[in-house]
């Protein structure tokens, strides 16, 4: 596959993340700034050019943009970007003072210095309207700026930014940008960039042919045909949307020709048409494949969330037979622990999760042990009462969180290493947070299986779950084993909460969203079987995500529930039942 | 029986409204054999609980099943009463009723009663009510909603109460009975149902010597009118009641015959009796 070689990171969302992930870029920017600061003449001329923007005519602005680009080079990027986004404003009083204005929330504007991006002032709508006026822009100007922007990033800048610029360019490639790319092609050293450049040119070629070529009997332009064939070869297997659009347009054009013009050139058009068709077909197949992979990934991701949520339950419900309706609240406590940990170490968000995981485990495990010692202990052998009592506890915990923190959702920050996406190709990109959580869920699962199968606690747990009285007679302290097992299950739920805080909103009702699903997973997988829980969560997650495009989220949810209800008919003990007479 | 069949049964033309008295199908015992078990195999997870078992029970006989733990005695009862499905083989009640086709309630309605190892009586009901529920009457929903106890049925319950010696406790909650009394009540519940076959699993476990003796008396008196199959570990008890004894070993019949012949059978001595000190 061609696409997989092009591995790069998308620009992250938050400013913090940008700084952390792109130290080289930042350094570059600082470095260029530094260079230009040396050359005061350049800086001054830039200032004077920008100052002219406010009063210049559109025609004048066109040349000004060129000049700005020429004078400032890469330093002009933020200015031009702001201009393109319509964020350049000037003071009504002093027309040569130009600023960048960013709208914050509904009615407030943040005014930034365009050179330093330092905040100048923060004002409301009315004051803003009264004092500032927009630097006007039209479509020609926009096009010009776009070209300038891509020229700047294509000629200088890192490989990643070049690739990005090329991708942005591809859709609207025209004569001027094509010649720009062509001119830069010779100088370019990086192979992937060169490859992408040739793709851009091929797309341009195709677009031109779509617009101009007639391929009738009179013209027998073999070179044209050869060029197009070459371009088609280049485009084979590319997954970019613009490539596909260009191909489809070209195909439509050829078909139009064969329909309209009776005396079209068969020898010329037919091979081209069949080639185009074949390429489109193969591209679509590949896109479909990657869409399938993406769906699978989403399914696995949902599965990992389900696994995390259910695995603690698989211990308390599956192994101990205790129905813990407060299980969801253990997850919630874990998420809130993450929030508190981040509050305590605001400058070390990147490391916060490493603290939060053990902290959440301890908090949830402690709460779990307290619940077990104070309530559940007295309800052994009365599963329905246990269910009700733990539900009461879940209400109390939820309300406690509401009172302590707030009924509103809390903001849990994402460490920079978790943001962004692994972009495998233009169709398929896997977000890091989901990837990490997938890996994390498996890690937790393996750790738990290890604890149950290999440690003495696990041995005791299994003994108690199989025959409580016998275990007691053998000297196992069943009371303690119960408390510890419950603590373990709750602690794992807390850990799950840390992971979930990275995916969803952290609020008092966080746990409620998962409790029913978790129970379904455990029941589906077979009570008392960790492996069953693993298989069940991933298969349910995948099933959900594959149904979603057809049925919609809600209906997919419902169908999965209905499926499980029916499944229980066939196999009341789940996928992997405990076997033999002992199970009865 | 599906709901429709049940309604149909309920509306049957030849029946008076809400008539009690379940009409049982005719059981063909023209060959003197009431229970045919042939080639029966059941396995749990590869463990063969029953292995090609063949057993014939004659109408009206008292048969004792003995065997070590895991010999398949309880599993055999489970299969006969429809609790456990079997892998292969056949179980016929009389000449032509295939028990494997029927569910547990249906088999009970056909006239096969069962007593469990652990006494199970309905703790929240009185002794009288326990017996009332066991009577051989209609067991459909609509009937039970309006059922009234007829004089004949009431007499029948009194008779059973006398037989099992719980007349004093008739209005006591069954949950308050002693262990032995519960065992008796459960046997009484079987009697009230007037079954053709009684399958009795360890009836004297936890009984005093005196109670055991009375149980032995009762069971021997039942034989003839009913067919009785008893599973028991207590060899003394078996000796006191048994006419024919069948020894099960590893899911198959090891030996069959009178108590004396069994005791002298070298195979039995080796695998079962030999183990006893």
């Amino acid at each position, binding site marked *: 596959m061609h696409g997989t070689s092009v591995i790069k990171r998308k620009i992250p969302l938050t400013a913090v993340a940008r700084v952390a992930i792109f130290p080289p870029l930042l350094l570059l920017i600082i470095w260029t700034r530094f260079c230009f600061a040396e050359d005061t003449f350049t800086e001054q001329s830039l200032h004077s050019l920008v100052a002219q923007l406010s009063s210049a005519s559109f025609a004048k602005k066109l040349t000004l943009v060129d000049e700005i680009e020429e004078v400032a080079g890469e330093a002009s990027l933020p200015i031009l970007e702001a201009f393109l986004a319509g964020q350049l404003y000037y003071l009504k009083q002093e027309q040569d003072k130009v600023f960048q204005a960013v709208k914050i929330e509904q009615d407030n504007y943040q005014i930034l210095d365009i050179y330093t991006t330092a905040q100048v002032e923060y004002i409301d709508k009315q004051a803003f309207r009264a004092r500032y006026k927009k630097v006007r822009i039209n479509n020609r100007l926009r096009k010009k700026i776009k070209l300038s922007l891509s020229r700047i990033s294509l000629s200088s800048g890192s490989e990643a930014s070049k690739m990005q610029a090329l991708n942005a360019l591809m859709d609207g490639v025209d004569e001027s940008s094509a010649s720009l790319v062509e001119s830069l092609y010779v100088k370019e050293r990086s192979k992937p960039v060169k490859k992408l450049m040739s793709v851009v040119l091929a797309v341009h070629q195709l677009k031109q042919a779509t617009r101009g070529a007639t391929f009738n009997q009179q013209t027998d332009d073999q070179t044209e045909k050869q060029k197009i064939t070459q371009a088609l070869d280049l485009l084979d297997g590319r997954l970019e949307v613009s490539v596909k659009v260009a191909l489809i347009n070209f195909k439509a054009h050829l078909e139009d020709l064969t329909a309209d013009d009776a005396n079209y050139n068969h020898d010329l058009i037919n091979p081209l048409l069949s080639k185009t068709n074949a390429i489109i077909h193969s591209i679509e197949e590949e896109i479909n494949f990657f869409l399938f992979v993406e769906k699978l990934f989403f399914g696995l991701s949902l599965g990992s969330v389900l696994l995390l949520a259910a695995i603690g339950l698989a211990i308390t419900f599956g192994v101990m037979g205790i129905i813990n309706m407060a299980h969801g609240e253990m997850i919630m406590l874990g998420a809130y622990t993450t929030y508190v940990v981040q509050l305590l170490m605001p400058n070390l968000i990147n490391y916060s999760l490493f603290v939060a995981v053990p902290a959440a485990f301890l908090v949830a495990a402690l709460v779990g042990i307290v619940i077990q010692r104070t309530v559940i202990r007295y309800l052994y052998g009365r599963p329905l009462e246990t269910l*009700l009592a733990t539900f009461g506890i879940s209400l109390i915990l939820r309300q406690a969180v509401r009172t302590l923190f707030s009924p509103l959702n809390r903001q849990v920050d994402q460490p920079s290493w978790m943001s962004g996406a692994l972009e495998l190709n233009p169709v398929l990109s896997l977000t890091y947070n989901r990837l990490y959580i997938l890996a994390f869920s498996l890690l937790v699962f393996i750790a738990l299986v290890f604890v149950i199968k290999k440690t003495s606690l696990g041995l005791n747990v299994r003994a108690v779950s199989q025959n409580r009285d016998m275990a007691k007679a053998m000297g196992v302290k069943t009371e303690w084993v119960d408390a510890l097992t419950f603590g373990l299950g709750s602690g794992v739920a807390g850990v799950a909460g840390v992971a979930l805080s990275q995916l969803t909103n952290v609020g008092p009702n966080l746990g409620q969203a998962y409790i029913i699903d978790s129970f379904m997973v455990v029941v589906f997988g077979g009570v008392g079987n960790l492996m069953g829980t693993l298989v069940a969560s991933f298969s349910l997650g995948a099933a959900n995500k594959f149904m979603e495009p057809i049925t919609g989220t809600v209906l997919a949810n419902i169908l999965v529930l209905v499926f499980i209800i029916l499944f*229980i008919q066939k196999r009341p003990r789940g996928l992997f039942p405990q076997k033999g007479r002992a199970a009865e | 029986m599906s709901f429709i069949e049940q309604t149909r049964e309920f509306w049957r033309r030849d029946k008076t409204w809400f008539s009690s008295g379940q009409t049982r199908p005719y059981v063909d015992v023209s060959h003197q054999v009431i229970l045919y078990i042939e080639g029966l195999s059941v396995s749990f997870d590869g463990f063969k609980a029953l292995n090609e078992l063949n057993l014939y029970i004659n109408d009206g006989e008292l048969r004792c099943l003995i065997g070590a733990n895991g010999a398949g005695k309880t599993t055999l009862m489970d299969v006969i009463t429809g609790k456990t499905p079997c892998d292969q083989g056949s179980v016929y009640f009389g000449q032509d009723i295939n028990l494997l086709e029927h569910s547990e*309630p249906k088999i009970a309605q056909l006239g096969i009663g069962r007593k469990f190892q652990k006494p*199970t009586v*309905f703790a*929240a009901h009185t002794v009288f009510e326990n017996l009332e529920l066991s009577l051989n009457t209609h067991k459909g929903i609509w009937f039970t909603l309006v059922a009234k106890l007829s004089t004949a049925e009431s007499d029948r319950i009194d008779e059973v109460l006398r037989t099992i010696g719980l007349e004093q406790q008739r209005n006591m909650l069954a949950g308050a009975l002693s262990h032995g009394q519960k065992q008796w009540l459960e046997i009484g519940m079987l009697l009230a149902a007037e079954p053709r076959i009684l399958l009795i699993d360890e009836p004297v476990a936890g009984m005093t010597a005196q109670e055991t003796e009375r149980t032995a008396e009762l069971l021997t008196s039942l034989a003839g009118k009913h067919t009785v199959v008893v599973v028991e570990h207590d060899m003394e008890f078996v000796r006191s009641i048994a006419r024919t004894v069948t020894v099960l070993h590893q899911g198959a019949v090891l030996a069959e015959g009178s108590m004396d012949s069994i005791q002298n059978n070298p195979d039995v001595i080796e695998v079962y009796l030999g183990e006893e000190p």
Partner: protein
Amino acid sequence: MSTLKSLFIASLAAGRLTGNGIQYVTIILLVTVFICSACNLLIPESSAFHVSTYTITLLGKYLCFALLALSVDVIWGYCGVLSLGHGTFFALGGYGIGMYLMRQIGDRGVYGNPDLPDFMVFLNWDTLPWYWYGMDQFWIAIVVAVAVPGLLAFVFGWLAFRSRVTGVYFSIMTQALTYALMLAFFRNEMGFGGNNGLTDFKELLGFDIQSNATRVALFLSTALLLIAALYLSRYIMKSRFGRIIVSIRDGESRTRFLGYMTNHYKVWLFVYSAALAAIAGILYVPQVGIINPGEFSPINSIEVVVWVAVGGRGTLYGAVIGALLVNYAKTKFTALMPDGWLFALGALFVGVTVFLPDGIAGYLENSARALQAKADLDNTSEDSLSKDGTSKDNNPKDKPTEEVTP
């Protein structure tokens, strides 16, 4: 409180009314209901004895909840099947009557469309969905509102009981059921008004739904239906059918070996229970004036269970007492300290299950029996053995107490 308790116990013991709590509750209910209605209709608003329509509606709501609690008690208390999805049947019944009330609005809606309810006009629908046909007729609507939940209960119960899904599994499945339906009813495409549900009702059977008289009539009919349901349920539970249900609770496999098709018994009891819940829903919606998917939310269903637990399961009238008490407490609590209610409810869940497993009714009956046993012990010391055995027996839910005395 303690004097009240001892008074109650004494009266129970003196009148040998143990097990006749239903009569007590019925009398108290009837008296209260008629007094309240009379005070609302006959006494002028200025008087101190006037009962406001708001109070009447509130009481009516409580009575609906009591009926809902009764339906849960029938299946949980007597058959040991804990349904955490009875809100489903309640809400479906409510939607049934809601559809009728919606059709009665006619062209008086905001859009003034005589053929379509407002929300359908809003969604640009041009025809009425097929399942709305016939809902303009009161009796059809009532039959549908009871039959649909009944059918759902039949299908679900049949599937669940046939494959012997019991205990906690069943509870979780019912919870999943109500959760799934909640999700479904939130969808606009379902044709039940989506998020907002059905509301803005105008009249019921031609009577203005806001008027005092209608409110009082609804209140009275709720009370009467509740009493009817109490007596019907008592009849069922006292019949042989009821005793079989209790047998199923205490030993399903034994009951099966006695020849009873336990699945059928459970299914039909479940259907009966669902129908009661649906009737509660039918009575509830005209009084509160709205039905929305929130009624399906699992927490509502589980709250009903706690009413029953507080009142005492397996006693029928206990469920009524529990529902009335807890809901009264809820109203008072949420008015005084809104944040505290969930704490209190949570504590109630824990407290009742741990400290008062038989609920209020069970506690009172146990006390009454103990008192009576003591009195009997004083009279005759010979027969004390069996008496002690009876009272020590761990919580027999259905007490055939009348026959105990020799």
